């Protein structure tokens, strides 16, 4: 049934730390490996060893460059102002694009802008939304959200491959398998997390187990006392594009301020001293030290 459950008992999901993710793609590879042999059937690739391999991956790791202050300040005077007003990066075609109306000015930033350009790796997977449109648009009942733990799944025996659910997801969580003719997506490793043949420590999604920097955490985000909920509260975890109203369960933790002394907002201000009030000795010391 593609109608959504009124409420789910638990809200299982992932918390992904953008501060510690190093973009190694281990999560994506481990996910592909586990799910290729998982209970939802294989994840076959077209032309796997050829020139144009393609196939379904539940995890995709993007790599971005966040411009640092140095980039924003260098160059012509006008450039800095335009860049700080929140623009796309200059491209060869249009070095300084016209500002877009809704661009948010940077001075409100809760995150200090890094002094130097910073890389940011961004693993993207299903967010197991509380009110996912991918489920409600499904005409067959193949897509569903489990009432007991909130996991969004596709019954691949019912899916007709109309691909409407992929269109409905702004996060790109669903990919169509041309080989199998059905839609496939992250199962939150539902065949691992309840698998009693595995050690209890291993009952976690494959991506979480594989992450070498522990940038991925799995747990019940509906329970305020769970480790993941505490982590989200402590680090200011946020949901992606909440304006769509799908209420993602997964949370992302923002990068911590860089320990760089020249960090834009953390930069210590030089305190002014009224030397006239100082004793001659201290005035001399100040003069010497100020050289």
């Amino acid at each position, binding site marked *: 049934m593609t*109608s959504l459950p009124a409420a789910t008992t638990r809200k299982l999901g992932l918390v992904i730390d953008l501060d510690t993710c190093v973009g190694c793609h281990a999560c994506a590879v481990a996910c592909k490996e586990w799910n290729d042999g998982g209970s939802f059937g294989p994840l076959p690739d077209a032309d796997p060893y050829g020139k144009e391999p393609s196939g379904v*991956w539940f995890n995709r790791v993007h790599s971005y460059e966040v*411009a640092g202050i140095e980039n924003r300040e260098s160059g012509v005077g006008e450039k800095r102002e335009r860049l700080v007003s929140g623009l796309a990066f200059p491209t060869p075609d249009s070095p300084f694009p016209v500002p*877009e109306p809704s661009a*948010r000015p940077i001075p409100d930033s809760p995150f200090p802008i890094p002094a130097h350009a910073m890389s940011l790796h961004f693993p993207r997977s299903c967010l197991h939304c509380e009110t996912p449109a991918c489920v409600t648009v*499904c*005409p067959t009942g193949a897509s569903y959200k489990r009432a007991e733990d909130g996991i969004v799944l596709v019954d691949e025996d019912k899916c007709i491959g109309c691909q409407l659910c992929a269109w409905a997801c702004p996060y790109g969580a669903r*990919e169509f398998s041309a080989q199998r003719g059905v839609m496939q997506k992250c199962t939150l490793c539902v065949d691992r997390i309840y698998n009693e043949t595995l050690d209890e420590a291993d009952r976690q999604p494959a991506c979480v187990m594989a992450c070498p920097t522990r940038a991925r955490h799995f747990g019940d985000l509906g329970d305020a006392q769970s480790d993941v909920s505490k982590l989200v509260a402590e680090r200011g975890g946020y949901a992606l594009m909440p304006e*769509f109203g799908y209420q993602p369960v997964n949370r992302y933790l923002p990068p911590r301020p860089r320990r760089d002394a020249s960090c834009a907002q953390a930069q210590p201000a030089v305190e002014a001293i009224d030397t006239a009030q100082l004793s001659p000795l201290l005035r001399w010391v100040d003069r010497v030290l100020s050289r």
Partner: protein
Amino acid sequence: MRPTFSIIFFTVVSGAGYGLWLLVGLAHALVWPGCMLDPATGTVDVQVSVCRMPSTLTLAWAAGFLLVSAGLLSSLAHLGQPRRAWRALSQWRSSWLSREGIAALLAYVPATGLFLIWLGQQSPGHLVPALILENETLVRVTGALLAAASVVTVFCTANIYACLKPIRAWHNRLVVPAHLAFAALSGMLLLWALAALPRWDLMPAAQETVWSVLLPFAVIVLAVISAAIKLAYWKQIDRPSGLRTAHAIGLDALGNVRSFEQPHTQENYLTHEMGFRIARKHSRKLRMICLLAGFATPAILALLALLLPALGAFAAWLALLAGMSGIFLERWLFFAEARHAVMLYYAAHGD
């Protein structure tokens, strides 16, 4: 969004078919009985106390049946598992696609009803009891049901697109009116062209005049309405959304975020399906062609037909050709120009 041929063909062709069925249904509901003259005597056939469906409407019904069926079959070609298509009828509570499937099948019920009535008229009293054929209310209700089911089906089709929030160009309040207007316009163009074909019955002279004026006039009105909706729609979707990659990853505050490496070396399903960008380069010119072919040409030809009735048949078929090409192009642009929010992650556009 990638313009897939099977979907464009489905929405345009089935839209035209339902537009035609809408008009056939309305004709039965509103202007029945449009008693035809007995071809032998040239007078109202009093022997047969039954009114006959004008042959143009018979043709229109058949053309509608072919177009609707061809469109629906084409939509199946888009599916990964077409043999399971019957499952799509189950989730009407939440899914517009499911509702569309049900409405599309339900429309065949009154359509079959009209077919049986026509069949009965061919040999009154044999196949269908005269009691039914003479029951004016029944015929009118069947026609009204066909008209309603046609509108509902197109409404559901349009809502499949309009309900998708990640595609800003589709989640727009003009998408549903546009689909309905184009279906009605293409239906009207088809009916006008079919009315220009030779008939095998005689229509009373008064009715003949009404038809030859009403159809081109309706084409002009619908073409103007359709063009107005489409122009307003383009104006709306051209407004920048201001969404950027930084917003998609939830870090607007960091401002300048640029993708320096894609998650994969090859194109994937998402970039293939939602990253289509070939059309945008020429979208202005294509829009102009669409306006000229789809709306301006049929309207001008219809005006010409009103002024010079002798050109009627030629104008009608030329208008159909131009109008349908324009509507096909419109539907192609509807896909090709639509941008999906997921492409923000690929930093492929500023949407």
